[in-house]
């Protein structure tokens, strides 16, 4: 089994880019697309996402974690990406890897293709994600002796884009994040932190992993998929 492969998601220009996909593919029937958290939360939980995929593999579920343009190992510039484009990429990935289900974590839920059987683990709205990043920027500015106002920054970001906590976000991304809500429907199974035990890893100051949480999450997802 090859763990890494590549795929070609769309770019804003209409062209395509080559990106990495991490996969546990043994050509089994239950196949899952993993949509990880966004930005800083992605970095904090990357190890855990792979841990979850390993546990799913042991439970008999194939899973796919494609890099979206501008994310993880991607060479595409983040500032030219948007939620719309990432949604399109996620939709294509679902079909390309023939996935029946989605597991979305935090901001990943904002990208989940609608009307697709999905597990949303602590889904996040766009606005608080953006707010936390704006706050990180104003705190860092204050530390450096500069005074910045979140409202002013946001107004600027909507028009010209903005670098927030080291993430260069384009104007389209900022405007879309302000309004983005996870599409929770009858086909969505919500998974709360209490079901996994432990504390949320996306909240950690340093990236960390927790095999017990990964095991618990994989068990819920595998049981849901195998019963379907």
């Amino acid at each position, binding site marked *: 089994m090859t763990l890494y492969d590549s795929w070609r998601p769309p770019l804003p220009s209409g062209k395509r880019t080559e990106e990495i996909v991490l996969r546990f593919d043994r050509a089994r029937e239950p196949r899952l697309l993993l949509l990880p958290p966004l930005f800083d939360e992605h970095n904090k939980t990357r190890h855990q996402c792979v841990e979850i995929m390993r546990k799913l593999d042991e439970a008999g579920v194939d899973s796919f974690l494609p890099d979206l343009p501008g994310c993880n190992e991607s060479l595409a510039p983040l500032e030219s990406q948007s939620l719309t484009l990432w949604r399109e990429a996620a939709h294509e990935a679902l079909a390309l890897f023939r996935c029946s289900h989605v597991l979305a974590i935090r901001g990943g839920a904002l990208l989940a293709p609608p009307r697709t059987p999905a597990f949303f683990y602590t889904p*996040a709205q766009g606005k608080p994600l953006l707010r936390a*990043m704006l*706050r990180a920027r104003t705190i860092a500015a204050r530390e450096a002796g500069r005074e910045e106002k979140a409202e002013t920054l946001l107004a600027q970001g909507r028009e010209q884009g903005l670098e927030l906590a080291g993430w260069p976000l384009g104007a389209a991304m900022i405007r879309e994040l302000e309004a983005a809500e996870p599409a929770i429907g009858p086909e969505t199974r919500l998974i709360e*932190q209490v079901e996994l035990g432990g504390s*949320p890893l996306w909240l950690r*100051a340093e990236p960390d992993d927790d095999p017990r949480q990964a095991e618990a999450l994989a068990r819920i997802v595998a049981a849901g998929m195998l019963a379907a």
Partner: protein
Amino acid sequence: MTGQTAISTDATAPSRSQIDTVLRAILRDVLGLEEAQVEEFSGDTGLFGHLPELDSMAVAGLLTEMEDRLGIVIEDEDVDGEMLETYGGLLAFAEAKSVES
């Protein structure tokens, strides 16, 4: 959102010890500590500027969790080095905010 220790929103002003408990639980989650370790935090325990892992993004997450779990709203102007520097400073801030809301 996380289902972790939180103060119920229909309560009247939460007690000092309730806020203390929630705040320690948030710090445990953010810093990845054991319960016994955060129990040892005193008013003088240094936070922002003392713990290298507590960078601006981690502090932003911490403040967002405080808003969620304590049912308070933290304005930009509220955030300064003093309230973030020690556990005592953060607790005093959270208490003052809880009375306001």
